[in-house]
């Protein structure tokens, strides 16, 4: 039985542009499954492990030397808040994966601090995923995943791993941190794929 509480509105508002069950938020909530890792850009690196023994790495300056894209996207968190028209600068995964031969169709994304999330390699390509290091024109705040986070806005935002460290390409799908404890393996907000079986 649900009790509706008179006068309680919460931060979110309904909006016709939003995926089912989502609410528009004016601010940018900080969600985190652990402490904010302290990451020194001089020791930072991003890797792609191809799954056939090969490992590419980029230092911070190497990553920043790659062509950067500025994108404006809507983001949807599985905890039901959405934010429209957010602006990010980052390097497209198309660029990073350009001369990589994936050994399989699956990707497991790793973060500093131990967080993981999985998605099909196909969702990382085609201009749909970035390693983002600027938000709204400013360097990405550590609370929001700085120095760099994954940005995959067409899936629920837990897939956009904060403090991203690399991508492991796999022959077999491997569920990540939330996908292994109830959250949907794919997480399409428009099909409201929040939990297992949705």
């Amino acid at each position, binding site marked *: 039985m*649900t*009790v*509706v*509480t*008179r*006068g*309680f*509105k*919460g*931060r*979110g*508002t*309904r909006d016709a542009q939003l995926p089912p*069950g989502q*609410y528009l938020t004016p*601010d940018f909530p900080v969600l985190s499954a652990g402490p904010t890792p302290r990451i020194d850009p001089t020791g930072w690196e991003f890797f792609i492990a191809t799954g056939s023994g090969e490992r590419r790495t980029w230092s911070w300056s190497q990553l920043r030397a790659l062509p950067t894209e500025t994108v404006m996207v809507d983001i949807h968190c599985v905890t*039901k808040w959405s934010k429209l028209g957010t602006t990010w600068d980052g390097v497209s995964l198309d660029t990073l994966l350009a001369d990589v031969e994936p050994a399989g169709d699956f990707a497991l994304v790793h973060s500093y601090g131990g967080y993981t999330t999985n998605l099909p390699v196909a969702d990382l390509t085609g201009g749909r995923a970035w390693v983002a290091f600027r938000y709204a024109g400013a360097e990405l705040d550590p609370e929001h995943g700085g120095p760099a986070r994954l940005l995959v806005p067409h899936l629920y935002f837990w897939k956009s791993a904060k403090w991203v460290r690399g991508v492991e390409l796999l022959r077999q799908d491997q569920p990540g941190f939330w996908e292994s404890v109830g959250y949907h393996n794919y997480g399409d907000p428009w099909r409201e794929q929040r939990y297992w079986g949705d």
Partner: protein
Amino acid sequence: MAAARTETPAARTLELDVPDWPAHRPGQHVDVRLTAEDGYTAQRSYSVASTPGTGRLELTVQRIDDGEVSPYLVDVAQPGDAFEVRGPVGGYFVWDDADPAPVLLVAGGSGIVPLMSMIRARSAAGLRVPFRLVYSTRSPDITIYADELRRRQRDDRGLDLAYAYTRGVPPGWRRPPGRLDGALLREAGWPADLGPACFVCGPTGFVEAAANLLVDQDHPADRIKTERFGPSGGGAA
């Protein structure tokens, strides 16, 4: 919700009529769930403030200005409004009234709430277990339960009180405004060799600092129980 009392300009006590509300143990909390008309829900934890066994549940909530739930509970909710409450829950951060050890309560801001339930429980049960409260608060005007504590300091035998005002002090106060420090805790608390049960509650940063001071003063870790309210934790301490 049956009634509400203003405690300070930033805090209010809500009196809730919960069918079959059981006697809680002092220190326990409830989970409050609010549901908006459009289906949006938010859940937060609030400590039980009331005396156990009175049949009515009281919560004291401090407003966090940019918060989602606390401004509703402090400013909007009215008698007759309804929301869901789960509890009482939590069996660890509780004072056991059968334990004869002296008690040290260390509160930061709204962290006073579960500790007040312990003070009220002690008094209601007519117990004489020595209690000392060290209460860090921003200034006298926003000190939750200030009047009741003044009265209890006079009437409740064996209850001692010390304040650390962090921003503004009452007229004629000797200690300048400042954070709770080791010297005040040593002076107003209990020496570790008396084996006191210590309860520390408030914003996460305050609890970290206060618990570390107690450890530095040789209180064993298993005699220090903590309840962190979160980053802003119901207001500054």
